[in-house]
């Protein structure tokens, strides 16, 4: 008996997929999106600064990928995105946080719908805090940047706000896009 298998994400156990749910995006596409997000961040994000904080397209993408595709895909995408950020000036502070946030977001995927606006926004807020906290700890340990907690916390609070707004826009845009496509 031939049985249609659910779409393969990267590796690891496959989740049972609802018949109506859209297939998760390919990992190559996610990598391309991550590369573009990092490129936009290092090139244009300085124009979007709000009280010292910039929105992180990569964080939103990592969290959304984790929710949509699971911890494995989310974790590896977060790791690769963090490597790209560090290679372009992060100094090694982003890769751990990226991988951790991707993986943790993926853990939520078995319990929550990735299409839920509330879930995505809450996950993005938590992911931003975790990423920045990990980065702060790495910076503290590796470089001894003492006394920057207040500045870091202030920027993180504003970044949470910006990232949540960005995530809301992305989710709403994806909903509009999926509703626009004709049903098969």
């Amino acid at each position, binding site marked *: 008996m031939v049985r249609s298998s659910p779409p393969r994400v990267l590796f*690891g*156990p496959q989740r049972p997929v609802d018949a109506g749910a859209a297939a998760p995006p390919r990992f190559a596409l996610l990598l391309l999106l991550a590369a573009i997000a*990092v*490129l*936009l961040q*290092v*090139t*244009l994000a300085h124009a979007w600064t709000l009280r010292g904080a910039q929105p992180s397209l990569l964080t939103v993408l990592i969290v959304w990928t984790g929710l949509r595709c699971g*911890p*494995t895909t989310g*974790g*590896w995408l977060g*790791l690769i995105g*963090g*490597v*790209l950020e*560090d*290679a*372009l000036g*992060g*100094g*090694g*502070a982003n*890769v*751990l946080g*990226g*991988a*951790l946030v991707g*993986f943790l977001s993926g*853990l939520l995927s*078995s319990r929550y719908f990735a299409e839920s606006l509330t879930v995505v926004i809450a996950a993005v807020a938590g992911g931003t805090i975790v990423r920045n906290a990990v980065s702060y700890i*790495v910076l503290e340990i*590796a*470089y001894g940047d003492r006394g920057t907690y207040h500045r870091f916390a202030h920027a993180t609070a504003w970044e949470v706000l910006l990232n949540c707004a960005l995530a809301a826009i992305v989710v709403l845009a994806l909903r509009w896009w999926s509703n626009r496509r004709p049903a098969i």
Partner: protein
Amino acid sequence: MVAIYSFWDERKLLVFVALIIVAASVSLLEIDASRNGRQSPIDVVVGAVYTPLQAGLTRMVEAVGTGVHDVLHAGEFAAQNQALQDKAGKLAAANQRLQADAAENRELRRLLAMKQTLPGDAVVADIIGYVPESTRREVTVDRGSRDGVHRDSVVVSGDGLVGHVLSVGPHEARVLLVIDPESAVPAYLRRSRSWGIVTGTWLHAKMKYIDQNATLQQGDIVVTGHGEIYPSGILIGTVREIDRKDNALYQTAVLEPAVDFHSLQHVLVYTSP
């Protein structure tokens, strides 16, 4: 059979451990490179890919931003353009005034130099009118008898001899130019010391009654000779053409006046010999 997924099943744990090991390794690599002030191999590869992309994106965004800015501020640019054009017009007018002032300054300096080379008192006068009939070569100056000007006063410019005063009013005087045919100025060639009489030919002047044996050359300088009216040594012009006939008693030379009579503005009128 339905698979039961635990929160920390074996595969997830494996992925988690792998992620942490790889991330920590990469992080340590980056930190080590950063603390030693060099680039890691990852930095080099990523930088090689991203640098041209960043440059292209930055240029594109700047071009789009400039275009949007230009469109949004088109009205403002038009106003600025108009203001700059007005300013340019005012500056051009001011520049012309300054150039005119500079030219006048140069002319007055030449007049002053001329005054210092000639004996006697003199007043500076402005040309205020020309004789309407084209048959006469006269000008009117704004100095008259009240300024010490008298009939036959010698008039010079910074370049040379202009003429002499023909008639005087209280506030103005009429000056007969040396290019008027009625004018007759005793003169000599500075190089050969040959004498003659300079009269006008409407546009130029000619020196008549030059000794037949005198050697003339084009470019010879002609100056006034001492006479009843003119002091000696005022430049009249240079020889342009020579008219010498073997059976004539005298030679004649056509002169190029030193003074440009079409652009005269300021002259020096001698009030005493």
